[in-house]
């Protein structure tokens, strides 16, 4: 059936086509291209012909198993202990390189825990990818709720009619306008271990009792520091979205609540929050997607280090695809990330659906 859309709408199509074309060329096509690449062994520049490898790339990234190591015993059957009295276990390397266990070949230890006398060791064929995956999930799980909550608090504060409130709106929104690369560079100085702004500040606050920390150089603080900076940087953006949601709530509803004697908290609970439902769903999904894509901060501030403690999926995709010329590996990570974000977004949509 020839609809009006295709026949009598030449001007309309004329206007739409450049946009469609750009989206198709730079988003749709690359996506399918990436999916195709992830099934091959394509390298960025390589003399060898490209081979179809099926799901090998995925297996390579996602293969994880738990092996159980029994403590070593001497001839008498006694447990061997080192000087500190700790049990000794066979080396994981002996298993993953042994011909007796071809299924574990090439895998490396990710982490282990103690189960009775035995040690349970999780080995993965790509430990860096696994760390990136976990870091990304942690990043999302911390940044999404904290950023959304903080943005809501700021929006509530800023939604009041106070003289000069626009100054605060501008201040909170300013980091959003500044490029994340610039912000990351600045925060490197703030976080610097020797004479950084943050250490100096803490030093002053504690009257000199503070031991300086190299925030980005320490595996236990690096990811947290980057999360704090990321939250600070984009909170203004989400504040504005919350603010627009707040302003759609009819003032008469607040007046009705006032007359009924609702307290501040009750007003929030019965009037404000229900009125923000749709905004909340939007913000949740947007923040989640943005957080999964974390890259620039990592690239500028830590390059994934120290000890892979700030590796993330997008950073890994870029490092592999361009740094190591392993374009099919990078594409595979992109596809995995896509599926992850898609399924989480769908789950969020489903959890927050209108139950009426």
């Amino acid at each position, binding site marked *: 059936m020839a609809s009006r859309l295709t026949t009598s709408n030449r001007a309309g199509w004329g206007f739409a086509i450049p946009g469609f074309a750009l989206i198709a060329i730079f988003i749709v096509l690359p996506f399918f291209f990436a999916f195709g690449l992830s099934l091959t062994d394509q390298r960025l520049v390589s003399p060898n012909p490209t081979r179809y490898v099926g799901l090998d790339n995925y297996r390579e990234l996602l293969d994880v198993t738990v092996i159980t190591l029994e403590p070593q015993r001497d001839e008498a059957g006694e447990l061997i202990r080192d000087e500190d009295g700790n049990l000794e276990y066979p080396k994981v390397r002996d298993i993953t390189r042994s011909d007796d266990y071809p299924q574990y070949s090439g895998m490396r230890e990710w982490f282990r825990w103690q189960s009775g006398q035995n040690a349970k060791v999780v080995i993965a064929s790509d430990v860096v990818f696994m760390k990136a995956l976990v870091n990304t999930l942690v990043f999302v799980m911390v940044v999404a709720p904290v950023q959304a909550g903080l943005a809501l608090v700021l929006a509530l504060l800023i939604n009041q009619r106070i003289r000069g409130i626009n100054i605060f709106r501008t201040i909170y929104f300013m980091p959003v306008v500044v490029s994340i690369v610039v912000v990351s560079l600045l925060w490197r100085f703030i976080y610097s271990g020797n004479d950084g702004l943050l250490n100096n500040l803490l030093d002053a606050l504690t009257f000199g009792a503070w031991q300086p920390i190299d925030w980005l150089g320490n595996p236990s603080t690096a990811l947290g520091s980057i999360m704090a900076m990321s939250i600070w940087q984009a909170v203004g953006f989400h504040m504005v979205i919350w603010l627009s949601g707040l302003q759609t709530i*009819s003032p*008469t*509803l607040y*007046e*009705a*609540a*006032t*007359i*009924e*004697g*609702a*307290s501040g908290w*009750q007003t929030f609970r*019965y*009037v404000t929050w*229900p*009125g923000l*439902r749709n905004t909340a769903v939007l913000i949740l999904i947007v923040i989640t997607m943005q957080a999964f894509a974390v890259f620039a901060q990592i690239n500028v501030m830590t390059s994934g280090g120290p000890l892979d403690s700030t590796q993330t999926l997008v950073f890994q995709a870029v490092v592999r695809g361009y740094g190591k010329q392993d374009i099919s590996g990078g594409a595979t990570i992109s596809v995995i990330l896509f599926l992850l974000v898609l399924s989480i977004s769908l789950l969020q949509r489903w959890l927050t659906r209108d139950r*009426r």
Partner: protein
Amino acid sequence: MARVSLKGVRKSFGTADVIKGVDIEIEDGEFVVFVGPSGCGKSTLLRMIAGLEDITDGTLEIGGRVVNDVAPKDRGIAMVFQTYAIFPHMTVRENVAFGLTIKGVPKAEKAEKVAAAARILQMEHLLDRRPSQLSGGQRQRVAIGRAIVRDPAVFLFDEPLSNLDAALRMDMRLEIGKLHQQLGATMIYVTHDQVEAMTLADKIVVLKDGKVMQAGSPMDLYHHPANLFVAGFLGAPSMNFISVDTRSVDNGLAMVANAALDPIEVATTGRDIRTGSRAILGVRPQYLVPSATPAEGMLHGKVTLTERLGAETVVEVGLNDGSRVIAAFGEDRILAPGTEIGLAFDPRQAHLFAEGDRP
């Protein structure tokens, strides 16, 4: 139950004076209607009574207690808004019970009060619906239900029916009247609609530019308007004003006439009307009757426009002195434009105003 009394009440928004000194006494159980043109401050006054706007000057008493600085919830009032202001995400039941939920009233008591309110408003079958599934009239009923449940001494209504269509408005009007009889609470009602004002009110307060023009029973205001504004504001079509010369004044009766009006004696009702001065004669369209021949009657002119409404015929007459009057005849008549016509009226139904009676 409570009296409400406003003494010298004023309100300014910055430099704009909106309420300019208002004194109103409202008796316990009285139904008072505030009317006035748009922007005269009706809503502002009502919101000051509710506690949604603070009072710049003067005192407000509810039930003998000065409540200028008392929180809305402690004033013993409930308010119904033009836009309903019911919570879209709550069911009707939750909406009606809202005030009780806020107060933490036990479940059983809450259910009982909601049921009672629903019974009064005949909306038991709606309790589990969402506002989006209700008509405008039903939504307003929910808002009224929420007010009833609070068991207030004073109900405040701000144009509660103006978002409804004409037929529904009449139903709801009757219902609010019944509600007042049933509950016996003091009610203050803001409206644009004269019919609502005339039918519901024990007392009408006519406001203009933040001042009270006149307060009194509907019939008092209709038959004895204090000034030209009130005379012109109440009644539809509105009162005709005819500029006349005063020939003589004697014993409370003035002899007035003009080029189109035969001399006639009208009571001055104590107004400042002197021999030789200009005065304004007010006659309601309904009191003008066509005379048998154009020469009879007191006003003479030609029909310029006729509107036949079935039971009533509204006629615009261009008088011989160039002014126009509207006459409303209580029957269907065919009067072609251009027809010569004479109009008669009972001078006891006419009002004479001095030029100074323009507020």
